[in-house]
C-alpha cells in the first residue's frame, strides 16, 4: 500500500533574537490510508512543530526544510500551496480555545465548505448537521446556533472533529486532542477517531505524550525527543521490544493501571493503623461573585463529605476535574474555610482554630502543590523557602537551620549546596523535590499532595512518585494523595476515595476498588483509562450516564464503602 503522505528529513529552524534553534530535525515518516500514526514525546520535543510545518502554519520566524509528498506535490517546497482543509485537517489539544468564541458553531462548521466551493450554504448546513450527528452530538439542529462557550469540552472537541471531517481530508492531524479532557470523555473521543479512520479510510496522525493513548489507538509510533526521531515502528514492536533506551525509559515510567503498585503489599498493615485525621460532614459551596449586587451561580464543591485518614497510610482521592478533590485537601489544610463540618486531628477540631493556635497547628499538615513552578517564592533562595517553617516554629540558630535544610535536601535527592540557588535555576522535577523538602521541614504528621506529578513529564513523574513512596516507607509519612490519574493512584495508594460532584461515591482499599469496583461510576472511570498495552482488546465504551447512586456511604465489604 502506497503512502498518502511521505515525509522525508523534515527540519524546522526557529530564529529569534539572533539565535537559531532546531525545533525538529530530520523527521521522516509515512502515513497510509486507514493508518493511525502516533507521534509521542515529552513536552517541547517538537511534535506540534512538525504538525504545523505540514500544515504550513509555522510562525513567520521559522523556516522549514525537507520534503513532504502529498498528492504528488511537495508540501514543503517553496511556493507550494498548502493543502489545508480538503487535504489535511488539524485538531488542537485545547477545545476551549480552538473554536472562535464569537462565531456560532454553525458558521464555523459551514464556512469552509462554502468558501472552498464544496457546497452551497444550504447543502453545507445539511451536511454539518449530519456530521454533528455522526460524531455523537445530540440535538445537532440546536447546536448549530450555539456558541462554543455553551458547549462542554468534549462536545467542542467533537465539533472540531466534525469541522475537519466535513472537508473530507485525506489526512487528519490530531495534536493531543484529549489531553485537556477527562478520562471518560477522552476514551469516547479516541473511540470516535478510531471509528472515523476505520470508516473513511483517512490517515490519522495522532500526537500525544501518553503511552496509554498510543497503545490504545495507534498502529505505528514515532518517538521524538528534542526535535529528533528516536525510534519508529509498529506499536506492538515498540511496546514489547523498544530498541532505544529512551523509549524504554518512557515505557518504564508509565504507571500501569493494569498491575498492582509497589505499595500494595502494605495495605494490610496500614489499614490496621489508628485514625490520624477525620473529616466529618464537610460541606463547601462557592458563590461565584458576578458583581456588586447580583450573586452568581453557586457551586457545591463539597457536599457532606466524611472520611478518615489512618496513621501511616496513603489515601488517594480520585475523580474528574471539578469533583471537589482539591477543595477537600484545602479544607483540611485550612487554606479554604468550609461551610460546615469538622476536621479533627487528635483531639482538636482544626476548623475552629484561629490566630496563633491555628498557626501553631498548621505545621502538622503540609501541602505539596501541582505546579512546582509556582510552589516556590521566585524571589527567595530555596534554602530560605525550605527553612521557613523551621524559622517560624523553632528557635534554632541560623547555622542549625542550614544544617536541617542540608539534610532535607539530601533526603529528597538534591545536594545541600543547592540551598543558595533560586527556584528558576532548577528543573520542574527538582523544584517539586524542593517543595517536598519544604513540606517535610515542618515535621508534619500529614501531607496533602494535590496532583504533585501531573505537571511533570512521565519520566520525572515516576521519580517523584518513587520519592514519595520512599518517604512513606522510611518516615512513616501519612499522605492524602489527590490525583485524576488512576494509574498513578494505583501505584501509590493504600486506599482510594472516588469523588464526583462534591460527594464520595466509593471508598475502599485500592486493590478492592480496582478489582471489584462496586459503584458504576468507578467502573466507568477504570474502563475509560487508557492502558499502555497494545495487545489489550480495544473495545468501544459506553458514555458514563449521569444517573447513579450518590447517597450516603454503606459498607459493602470490610472497609469498602459505596454510595447508596
Amino acid at each position, binding site marked *: 500500500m502506497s503512502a498518502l503522505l511521505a515525509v522525508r528529513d523534515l527540519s524546522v529552524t526557529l530564529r529569534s533574537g539572533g539565535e537559531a534553534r532546531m525545533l525538529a530535525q530530520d523527521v521522516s515518516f509515512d502515513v497510509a490510508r486507514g493508518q493511525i500514526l502516533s507521534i509521542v514525546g515529552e513536552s517541547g520535543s517538537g511534535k506540534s512543530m512538525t504538525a504545523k510545518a505540514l500544515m504550513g502554519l509555522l510562525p513567520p520566524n521559522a523556516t522549514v526544510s525537507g520534503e513532504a509528498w502529498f498528492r504528488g506535490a511537495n508540501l514543503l517546497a517553496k511556493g507550494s500551496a498548502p493543502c489545508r482543509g480538503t487535504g489535511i485537517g488539524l485538531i488542537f489539544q485545547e477545545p476551549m480555545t480552538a473554536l472562535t468564541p464569537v462565531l456560532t458553531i454553525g458558521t464555523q462548521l459551514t464556512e469552509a465548505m462554502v468558501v472552498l466551493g464544496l457546497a452551497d450554504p444550504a447543502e453545507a448546513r445539511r451536511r454539518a448537521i449530519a456530521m454533528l450527528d455522526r460524531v455523537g452530538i445530540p440535538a445537532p439542529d440546536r447546536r448549530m446556533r450555539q456558541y462554543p462557550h455553551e458547549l462542554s469540552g468534549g462536545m467542542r472537541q467533537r465539533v472540531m472533529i466534525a469541522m475537519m471531517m466535513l472537508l473530507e481530508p485525506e489526512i487528519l492531524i490530531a495534536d493531543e486532542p484529549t489531553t485537556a479532557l477527562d478520562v471518560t470523555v477522552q476514551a469516547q473521543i479516541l473511540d470516535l477517531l478510531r471509528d472515523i479512520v476505520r470508516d473513511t479510510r483517512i490517515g490519522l496522525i495522532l500526537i500525544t505524550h501518553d503511552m496509554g493513548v498510543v497503545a490504545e489507538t495507534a498502529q505505528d509510533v514515532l518517538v521524538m525527543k528534542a526535535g529528533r526521531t528516536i525510534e519508529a515502528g509498529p506499536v506492538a514492536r515498540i511496546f514489547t521490544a523498544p530498541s532505544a533506551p529512551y523509549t524504554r525509559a518512557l515505557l518504564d515510567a508509565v504507571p500501569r493501571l493494569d498491575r498492582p503498585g509497589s505499595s500494595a503489599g502494605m495495605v494490610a498493615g496500614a489499614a490496621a493503623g489508628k485514625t490520624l485525621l477525620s473529616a466529618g460532614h464537610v460541606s463547601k459551596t462557592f458563590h461565584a461573585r458576578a458583581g456588586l449586587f447580583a450573586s452568581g451561580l453557586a457551586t457545591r464543591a463539597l457536599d457532606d463529605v466524611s472520611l478518615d485518614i489512618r496513621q501511616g497510610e496513603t489515601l488517594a482521592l480520585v475523580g474528574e476535574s471539578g469533583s471537589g478533590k482539591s477543595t477537600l485537601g484545602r479544607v483540611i489544610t485550612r487554606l479554604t474555610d468550609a461551610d460546615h463540618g469538622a476536621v479533627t486531628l487528635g483531639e482538636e477540631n482544626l476548623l475552629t482554630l484561629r490566630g496563633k493556635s491555628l498557626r501553631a497547628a498548621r505545621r502538622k499538615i503540609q501541602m505539596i*502543590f501541582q505546579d512546582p513552578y509556582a510552589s516556590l517564592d521566585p524571589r527567595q533562595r530555596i534554602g530560605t523557602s525550605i527553612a521557613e*517553617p523551621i524559622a517560624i516554629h523553632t528557635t534554632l540558630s541560623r547555622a542549625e537551620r542550614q544544617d536541617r535544610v542540608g539534610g532535607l535536601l539530601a533526603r529528597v535527592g538534591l545536594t545541600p549546596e543547592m540551598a543558595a540557588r533560586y527556584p*528558576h535555576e532548577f528543573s520542574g522535577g527538582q523544584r517539586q523535590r524542593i*517543595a517536598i523538602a519544604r513540606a517535610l*521541614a515542618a515535621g508534619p504528621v500529614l501531607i496533602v499532595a494535590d496532583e504533585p506529578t501531573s505537571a511533570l513529564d512521565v519520566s520525572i513523574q515516576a521519580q517523584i512518585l518513587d520519592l514519595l513512596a520512599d518517604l512513606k516507607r522510611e518516615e512513616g509519612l501519612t499522605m492524602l494523595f489527590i490525583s485524576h490519574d488512576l494509574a498513578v493512584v494505583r501505584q501509590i495508594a493504600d486506599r482510594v476515595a472516588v469523588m464526583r460532584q462534591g460527594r464520595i461515591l466509593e471508598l475502599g482499599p485500592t486493590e478492592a476498588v480496582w478489582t471489584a469496583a462496586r459503584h458504576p461510576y468507578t467502573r466507568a472511570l477504570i474502563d475509560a483509562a487508557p492502558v499502555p498495552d497494545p495487545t489489550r482488546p480495544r473495545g468501544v465504551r459506553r458514555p458514563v450516564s449521569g444517573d447513579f447512586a450518590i447517597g450516603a456511604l454503606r459498607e459493602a465489604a470490610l472497609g469498602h464503602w459505596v454510595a447508596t
Partner: protein
Amino acid sequence: MTSLTDIPNGSAPPGFWRRMVRSSNGVVGLIIVLGLIFCAAFADLLAPYNPARMGTGGRFLPPGGKFLLGTDEFGRDMLSRILYGSRLTLLIGAVAVGISLTAGMLVGMVAAFRRGWVETLLMRSTDVLFSFTETLIALSFVAVLGPSLQNAVIAVGVAAVPFYARTCYSAALVETSKPYFEASIAAGAAPGRLVFLHLLPNVLPTMIVVATLGVSTAILAAAGLSFLGLGAQPPTSEWGYMLAGSRDYINRAPWLMTIPGLAIAITVLGFNLLGDGLRTSLDPVERR
C-alpha cells in the same frame, strides 16, 4: 519569629538583563532617562547662565550662537531654563508617583490580603474613584486647594491612586493565590511575614513597571495642569508652564513653544520606552 534580616535579596527572573539589553526600546528609554537624571543632577554645572536672570541676552534671540536654545521674552537663557526644568520635571514625576505608589500599594495589598469586607470596601471605592477618571480628580483637587505646583503634584499623585491600587490589587491577588504563598500560610507564617517577605517582593516588580510608565503619565498630567495655569507659578522653569507662556509668542519666537514641548515629549518618551522595556524583560510571556 525571625528578624527581617532574613529578607532575601530578590533576584530578577531568568534572563532579565539579556532581555532588557535585547529590547532596544528599553535601552533607548534607559539612555534618555539616565541623560535626564544627569541633566537634573548637574544642572548648576551644565547651565551656562542663571535661569532666572532676566536680560542675560537680548529678548527673543533665536537658537544658535551664544544662546544655544535662544532666549525667552525676558532675555533668559532657554537652555539653562530647560536644564533646571528637568530637575523639576523629575521631581514632579517622582513625588507624584511616590504618592500614587505608596497609597495604591497600601490599598491594593491590604485589600488582597485581608479579603472579606475590607476588600469589598476598598476595591469598590477604588472602582468608583477609578470611573471618576484621573483628570477630574486632579482638577477637583486643584479647584479646592488652589493652583500651585505643589498642589498640582499632589493632585496628579492622588488622581492616579485608584489605578495603582487596582493594579497592585490584581497583582497581589495573583500572588496570594499562588501555591508558594499558600505553602507559607500552611507553614504557619504570620501576616507580617507573609506581607513583607512574600507579597511585597513579588508585587514590587510589577509595580515598578507600572510606576515607570506612571512617571510619564504624571509628568504629562502635571505639565497639562501647569499649561492651564493650574500648576507651576512663575518664575519656575517648569516645562508645561513655559509652554503655556510661549503661546503669546508663537509668531515671533516659535522656538519658545517648540523647545519645552520637545523636552516634555522626549522625557515622557524615555519613561514610556523604559517602562515598555522593563515590562517585556520582566514578563517573558508578554509580547511586544
